[in-house]
């Protein structure tokens, strides 16, 4: 999904919203939205994953294995594939 953000000086910058599962290893993004219930949000929140946080994808395990991310100024967290698909991040400016 693409969204257009008006950056203020009339320049339209394209940002892309992808799930954490679809982010490429090595890429960074900003946590944008959770496609899950309150329980998921709470669980992620306690680990420091919440809206606006910058995360970098460290690795991607084969055969639908978990995704590891590095949260800015914080810890590394491994997230199962199903859950990672519910975490949307914004890539680019």
């Amino acid at each position, binding site marked *: 999904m693409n969204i257009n953000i008006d950056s203020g000086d009339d320049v339209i910058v394209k940002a892309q919203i992808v799930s954490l599962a679809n982010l490429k290893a090595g890429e960074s993004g900003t946590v944008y939205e959770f496609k899950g219930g309150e329980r998921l949000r709470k669980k992620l929140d*306690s680990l420091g994953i919440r809206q606006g946080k910058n995360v970098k994808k460290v*690795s991607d395990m*084969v055969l639908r294995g978990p995704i590891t991310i590095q949260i800015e100024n914080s810890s590394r*967290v*491994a997230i199962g594939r199903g859950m990672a698909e519910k975490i949307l991040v914004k890539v680019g400016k």
Partner: protein
Amino acid sequence: MKVILMGNPNVGKSVIFSRLTGTSVTSSNYAGTTVEYKKGLFKHQGKSVELIDAPGTYTLDPTNKAEEVAVEMLKEGDLVFNIVDATNLERNLNLTLQLLEQDIPVVVLLNMWDETHHKGINIDLKKLREELKVPVIPTVATTGNGLKQVLDYLDYREVKEFKKRSSEERWVEIGHIINDVQHIEPKHHSTKEIMEEYTLKTWTGIPIAALVLYLTFVVIRFIGEGLIDYIANPFFTGPFQRFLMQISQFLTEGSFLHDLFIGQLVNGQIDFEQSFGLLTTGIYIPFAAVLPYIVSFYFVLSILEDSGYLPRLAVLVDNVMHKVGLHGFSIIPMILGFGCNVPAALAARNLDSKREQFIASTLMSISIPCMAQTAMIIGLVGAFGGIYVFYVFAALFIVWIIVGLILNYFLPGYSSDLLIEIPTLRFPLLDIVFKKLWMRITNFLKEAIPFVLLGVLAVNVLYALGFFAFLTRIIGPAFSTLFGLPKEVISALLMGFLRKDLAMGMLAPLDLTVKQLVISSTILTVYFPCVATFIILFKELGLNNMLKSAGVMVATAVTVGTILNIGFNSIYESVVTMILIFIIIFILYRLTSKKYEQIME
């Protein structure tokens, strides 16, 4: 007075506990291993202090059982030492603010203070104290720096008023605090960080894991065999045997007391594996055959735990674990099971759902032999060649996969997703490793020795009463037809309920062929866990599920024993059997994948 240690997982809480109390404690790098909380007593300036190591928790709004326990403990304390990872201040402050909102005095320990400098993190302590309005003490748990000052605050009893906030308001507040007190100089990726990431990537992580597991096995074997060959056996076959022979002569062979304490002589000599007296086999099995392996296993496990490697293993095996209805985290109870099934069954409690707890406990009890049993398998079966030990473990591994697939298919629901913090790799502190090792060994001796002695006693009494003869007559025929085993093995199975190592020991005098040994070792692992594990399963799963689990175990044991007996008589037969097994695995795999897809839709 009662002091509670609280903090996120992996902040060095257990190390601080260990340093303050000086007693032995399980301290692990793995998120959530300390569900069984630790209590320690110490004296400070004449006052006795009770220190409680609460399970690591990220929040007071519990998301799992371990966190619930932590919140419960908070109610009993006079004071909380909140341990905070200084290198990860923002996330850790979430718990701190929640604690400040409670009606209990809080002292903040800013741990890993030394690492902030390497990471380019500057924290303004004065400002942080002003913001939090409570004492904040920088500490370094690994060296013990700062802990002396911590003790000065044992009498701190001020409770500051903090208004209750919603989760969002709290994060806003934390944002302000972080802005005020913390300054981070951007640093490049250090070589260590890059190395650490290799352990998490598929194509580098899997070979590293294979190497780690191989080394683990080699080191356990090396230390275990070394202790047996150079310490245990020389002592037992030397001075101890001479001493027992004197007792034997004194009691005179064949008398009741001789049978009880020394047992049967083999060719006029004591045979520690076969005599079956309280002082001979009853002492030999726990001390000489099993203890060396317990020491080496827990030594290596403690190092693995404290190095922070285990969560990485959980990430690597996650996709396989999903197929049997679990997720990567469940590798922990499985690995613990290789030491002793009891702590493993307890660790299964940390899994996300009842379903996962049931699958994990059942799979663990069915196909993971504890170190006591493994040591005896290596001793008895290994005498015929290492390949036979491999057969036993290969059979158990196949059982693990098939039973897991079946349980995952038939039990309603599906496995939840993995979500764990990956701590940084660090060198384990040897003094902490040894403290932990000491505690685990004393636990083993306390648990095992009474049971082994009781078991040897029971064997002698039941034998004298003719109970074994009675039982073998009844189930013996079915036993030899299905499993091709002599009827006497039944008594060993019966004993296996008490102690698996002892049961293996009972196979020694039976003159079994190697095939029969492989079959009986496998059945002995699968059919039932020992009584200690059984009690835990009962407590953790409840009667109903425990009985279900036991049903699965017995059914599996009968099936496996029969297949091993009739399916591998020639090379041709073995190939056909293996092909059939793989077809079954494939079909089950397809079925469970389909079920998962349907649920997803």
